[in-house]
């Protein structure tokens, strides 16, 4: 290994270095204090970043946590392929909870609009119980949404998985209090303080591999509620909606029924960073139908146990 040239002042000042060190500190605290942590992993850029940071936190030892994917079945094949390759490359165990299984045995009912994003909460909570996970890492960031801005880095959930924003523990210095009773668990958000632009800049700096759908590509899409949706088992196009070939990319990866693509020709990280810098819409506002439902859509889902 070659040593770094030591800078004049070794204290961490660069924003990305500071954020990386903070995230690594959080991973190590949880590894030290919890028995059965798990990383919630969708194959999206934020959870891919989580895994990258976890690798850096424990190298040269392996990441001491498995991965959990709550699979709505409304996927992009590129993302599932990416997910499986990443887990195999790092030697990580991957648990998959298929929403379809919950629908098949009647524990969940398909929604009339075909969206399965809200249906992820029950399989998530059931999987947490089944595997007795006591700390669940998620890629939530406080800059995404107003309710998330009030979220703690380590956030207690009761036996029903509920978040109570009015009785959160104060979070002081970098001393995290993860104590919980049997049956309770914590959600951990190591990239709480990152912005969307930080994520992209860091992905570029570190050469982190992402699923190809984050880069501009030609895809048959149709217009619904001001978003470009791809054809799929979730229904559509219907009525007057029609498929057109467009150059698009995804800013978030979620359930295919409610995650839209944005028109884009950005096919490199430099171009994506320019596009994100110039963008006049938040990533959730641009591409997530589930957050447009009401002013408090995210708060309500978080209270019920969603991420």
């Amino acid at each position, binding site marked *: *290994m*070659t*040593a*770094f*040239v*030591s800078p004049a*002042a*070794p*204290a*961490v*000042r*660069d*924003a990305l270095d*500071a954020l990386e*060190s*903070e995230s*690594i*500190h959080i991973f*190590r*605290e949880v*590894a*030290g204090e919890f028995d059965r942590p798990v990383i919630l992993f969708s194959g999206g850029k934020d959870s891919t970043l989580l895994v990258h940071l976890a690798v*850096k936190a*424990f*190298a*040269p*030892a*392996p*990441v001491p946590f498995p991965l959990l994917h709550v699979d709505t079945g409304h996927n992009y094949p590129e993302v599932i392929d990416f997910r499986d390759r990443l887990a195999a*490359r*790092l*030697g990580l165990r991957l648990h998959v909870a298929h929403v379809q299984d919950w629908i098949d045995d009647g524990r969940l009912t398909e929604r009339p609009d075909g969206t399965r994003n809200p249906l992820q909460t029950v399989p998530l909570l059931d999987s947490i119980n089944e595997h007795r996970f006591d700390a669940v890492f998620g890629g939530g960031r*406080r*800059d995404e949404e*107003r309710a*998330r801005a*009030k979220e703690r880095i380590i956030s207690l959930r009761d036996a029903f998985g509920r978040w109570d*924003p*009015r009785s959160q*523990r*104060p*979070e*002081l*210095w*970098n*001393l995290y*209090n993860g*104590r919980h*009773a049997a049956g309770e668990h914590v959600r951990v958000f190591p990239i709480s*303080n990152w*912005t969307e*632009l930080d994520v992209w800049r860091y992905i570029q700096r570190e050469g982190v591999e992402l699923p190809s759908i984050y880069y501009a590509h030609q895809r048959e899409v149709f217009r619904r509620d001001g978003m470009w949706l791809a054809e799929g088992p979730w229904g559509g196009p219907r009525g007057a909606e029609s498929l057109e070939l467009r150059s698009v990319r995804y800013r978030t990866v979620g359930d295919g029924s409610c995650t839209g693509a944005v028109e884009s020709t950005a096919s490199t990280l430099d171009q994506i960073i320019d596009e994100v810098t110039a963008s*006049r*819409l*938040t990533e959730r*506002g*641009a591409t997530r139908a589930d957050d447009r439902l009401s*002013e*408090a859509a995210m*708060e309500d889902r978080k209270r019920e146990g969603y991420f």
Partner: protein
Amino acid sequence: MSRDLLRFATAGSVDDGKSTLVGRLLYDTKSVLADQIEAVERASVDKGMSTPDLSLLVDGLRAEREQGITIDVAYRYFGTPTREFVLADTPGHVQYTRNTVTGASTAELAVLLVDARNGIVEQTRRHAAVLALLRVPRLVLAINKIDLVGYDEETLTAIAKDFAALARSVGFADEAVQVIPVSALAGDNVVERSTRTPWYDGPTLLGHLESVPVAGPEVTAPFRMPVQYVIRPRAGALPGAEERWGPLHDYRGYAGQVASGTVSPGDEVVVLPGGARTTVAGVDTADGPLDAAGAGRSVTIRLTDDIDISRGDLIAAAGAAPRVGSEIEATLCWLADKPLRAGARLLLKHGARTTQVIVGALGERLDVDSVRFVDPPEALTVNDIAMVSLRTADPLPVDDYADIRATGSFLLIDPPTGGTLAAGLVGNPLTLTSG
């Protein structure tokens, strides 16, 4: 180009317009995007307002929007070409001590707001005292609503003078304090320099935030690092790691975040509370070894001697080690609704170690309204700040909070519920001068 990071907090009393100031900072730095502005405009119209209410950008929870108040600390993010900002926006009225202490605990700078029509009020003193207690390195007084006093130089100079005296009386050095007259509503001196305050030759608020030096006292203090986790890949390494790292069968590294000072290979260190002395063999990261790692960096340290070290131990500079003991004199900020009495048995988290603690005698209480220490109370109730004697089950290596924040701070935790009861500061970090 590398951008650095400034963590800062805002504090102010109920009607000083803090949410509007924060909204203005976000809005004028173009950190608010079109869909967020539309949502705010829609909500403002729904509430019967004629101009967008920028405070709606920051009040995140349903109850806050319904009641028009800020309940909990909210974190905000914005950036300029030279610096990124993490802003802890702390509410001024509900649970003010709890929220101010939380926001200030990670802040390198605090912005305190007053209304130009009222000047320094009781709550300004209270906030200044709490920020001084928490040793926030730098302070800004934003005198807001200067449009409502006609941009009058004499009024604003008088407030600045009062504040300088207040800041000095709670221990802030003059050079750590900046006073800036602003109007959050009209935008004067927040991001854009106002043409209506020609007599003011200082920086705008954003200009100051962008240019203020951010190095805290941790940078030059002696080296400290709590061990969070022991990395031993003996049972199996990260796939491919041996190609980069060499044979790992005997690798043993101590993972942690440098809390203060700098560590380099060859440094003499002591492992506490045990007291074994050894030498740093290497400072590793996943990207390769470092010649030196400074405050804030997460690293993995290898030592030359095979010593029994586990999570919770502290590695410190051998020549300037912290004291180790079970008797700790400290200042508590009591954050819980249930009161604290002498004799309570609680848990204490310090660095990466949690131990049992018995609360001894309660000492003097800080009366935050008069900013004076007064006679010991019978019990501490929510938002009280007081001295206390503690006895811990395990000896702890501690520094005075005034010297090193990271090794001088701790939490008190309620054993049955796991709730966080208090923020603890070793010693008494508040130095009051009469005046």
